[in-house]
């Protein structure tokens, strides 16, 4: 799960996954069109939340999935983006500028954590992100500028199609970006760090710089996701936004679905949203417990995530059938 994938498969080229990327883009476009397709708002909301968790998951994946440095800060980074966007919009900034501000503030925050703690080993970085989350919560609650404990609201409630379309674009774009990255030269370098940082350094890979760049990119994405969600929610409460639960989702989604793959977070997001919906009617309080159990199970037994495990099982089933056919063709020897 946090370890790299098995060494044997040949690295697939960009060309070979192009159909997959086109399918992803088409799916995102279809999902974005939902507000106008006459679907019930219930279905639309489900798709929206899947996209939101998917985007957060890809953001986490971009950093922690690829480098193996577990971050608990992504919820805070998304929250920072949400606040920045809402403050900017309330100050009459145009939408594009507000979104830019959201991404920029999140990136700045990640620079602060990253520059200070990425030099240290994994555990230290994880702690640093955990404390960062707490610190941001405390500070945001304290400052007048961020509205104090009452949080802030968008002075004008925006129609729901706007954040919906934004989130679909982000989800699609993030997934495609991660897919391309995994297959690029940069991607190979990054995976080398995860595998063995010392060895990677020996062949001249500047681990710290790469980690920092990835962290900033991942933060920018999380910030944008937070901004879109801020527009959707229209009222932001620090206790909700900066609670560690959001960071939990950001890491559970790719872990359950499969890290360091583009499809993993999609599988994880679907599973997570599905569980929440099912449990809503049966046992609402249990969904956090179930997520925890799922996470536990995946880490312990399916350490490459559900998506890969299913893929493997399918391949084995197909392979078994193939072997049988081959044996039958060759006659029973």
């Amino acid at each position, binding site marked *: 799960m946090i370890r790299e994938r098995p060494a044997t498969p040949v690295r697939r080229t960009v060309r070979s996954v192009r159909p997959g990327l086109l399918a992803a883009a088409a799916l995102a476009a279809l999902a974005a069109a939902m507000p106008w397709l006459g679907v019930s708002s219930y279905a639309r909301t489900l798709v929206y939340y899947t996209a939101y968790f998917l985007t957060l998951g890809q953001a986490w994946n971009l950093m922690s999935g690829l480098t193996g*440095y*577990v971050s608990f800060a992504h919820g805070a980074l998304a929250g920072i983006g949400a606040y920045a966007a809402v403050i900017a919009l309330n100050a009459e900034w145009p939408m594009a500028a507000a979104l830019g501000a959201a991404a920029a503030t999140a990136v700045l925050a990640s620079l602060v954590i990253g520059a*200070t703690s990425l030099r*240290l080993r994994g555990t*230290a970085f994880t*702690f640093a992100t*955990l404390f960062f989350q707490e610190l941001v919560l405390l500070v945001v609650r304290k400052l007048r500028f961020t509205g104090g404990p009452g949080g802030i609201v968008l002075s004008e409630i925006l129609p729901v199609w706007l954040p919906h379309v934004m989130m679909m674009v982000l989800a699609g774009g993030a997934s495609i970006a991660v897919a391309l990255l995994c297959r690029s030269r940069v991607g190979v370098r990054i995976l080398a760090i995860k595998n063995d940082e010392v060895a990677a350094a020996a062949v001249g890979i500047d681990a710290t710089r790469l980690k920092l760049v990835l962290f900033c990119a991942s933060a920018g994405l999380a910030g944008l996701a937070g901004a879109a969600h801020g527009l959707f929610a229209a009222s932001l409460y620090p206790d909700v936004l900066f609670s560690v639960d959001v960071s939990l989702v950001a890491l559970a989604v790719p872990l359950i679905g499969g890290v360091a793959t583009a499809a993993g977070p999609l599988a994880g997001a679907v599973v997570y949203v599905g569980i929440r919906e099912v449990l809503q009617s049966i046992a609402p309080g249990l969904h956090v*417990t179930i997520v925890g159990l799922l996470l536990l199970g995946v880490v*312990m037994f399916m350490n490459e995530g559900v998506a890969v495990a299913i893929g493997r099982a399918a391949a084995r089933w197909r392979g078994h059938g193939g072997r049988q056919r081959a044996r039958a063709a060759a006659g029973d020897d």
Partner: protein
Amino acid sequence: MSLTLACQLVMNGLVFGALLGLVALGLALIFGVMRVVNFAHGEFITLGAYATFLLVTRLAVPPLTGVPVALVLGALAGWFIQRTVLSRVSGRPELEVLMVTYALSVVGLGLFSQGFGGDFRSYAEGPTGNLRLAGVVVGWRSLSVLIVCLVMGALTLLLVQRSRTGLGLRAIAQNRDASAACGINVPRSEQLAFSLAVGLAAAAGALVSLIGTTTPTVGHEWVLDGFVVVVLGGMGSITGAVVASLALGLIHSFASYALDDSWARILTYLLLYLAILVRPHGLLGRRAEL
């Protein structure tokens, strides 16, 4: 600031610091011996708190009796978790094990929320009255907590520093493979360390229920501070954890008098940040840790 006031603040800070020390002791022990960052530590605190609450309200048992009961209960639960979950992931990269303990904490929190509901629980029973020493007032309740923490902490330190078992634990903390080669039963020692550590956490939980109120997240709040002091004191250094806890208790007491509670906490986290940067291995830990 008068001397009396200062002494009062010191007294207040010591109570908080001692309780935190008990929690941090366990965290440091687990990290030192098993190299595991136990995110699930808080759930054992919560377990001890709820167990004591039930004992006091259902069975009319005096709260302080809850401490040994919680200790045993926590140790048993810990032994079980160690056998079924942690031993299975023992060889794996530390970040994977971290995810396992984190997942366990999520599950634990969910179960407590489901079982006890979200609201607080508290009871009125327990030592009452206060003691006046040269102008400093300290309640018997807080004093009992302080004494129990000091006793348990001292006993644990004695166990680790002076006994044969403790020698084994320290050996494993220094070099796992060499210890195994010397014939030390590593898996059993790990079980012991984990059970003891979370038993202490549960005992701390029993004390928390006495001077505070119990909610499903009560353990989480203490554990976050626990991590702060373990990192400050040096991951794996037990004495460091205790010293850092007492120091944090004092700093917090004075800071929240001079500023206010929130600023005091912000200050703590900022200090921690600086500490991690300047000495990533903590104040008393060994260089190899972080």
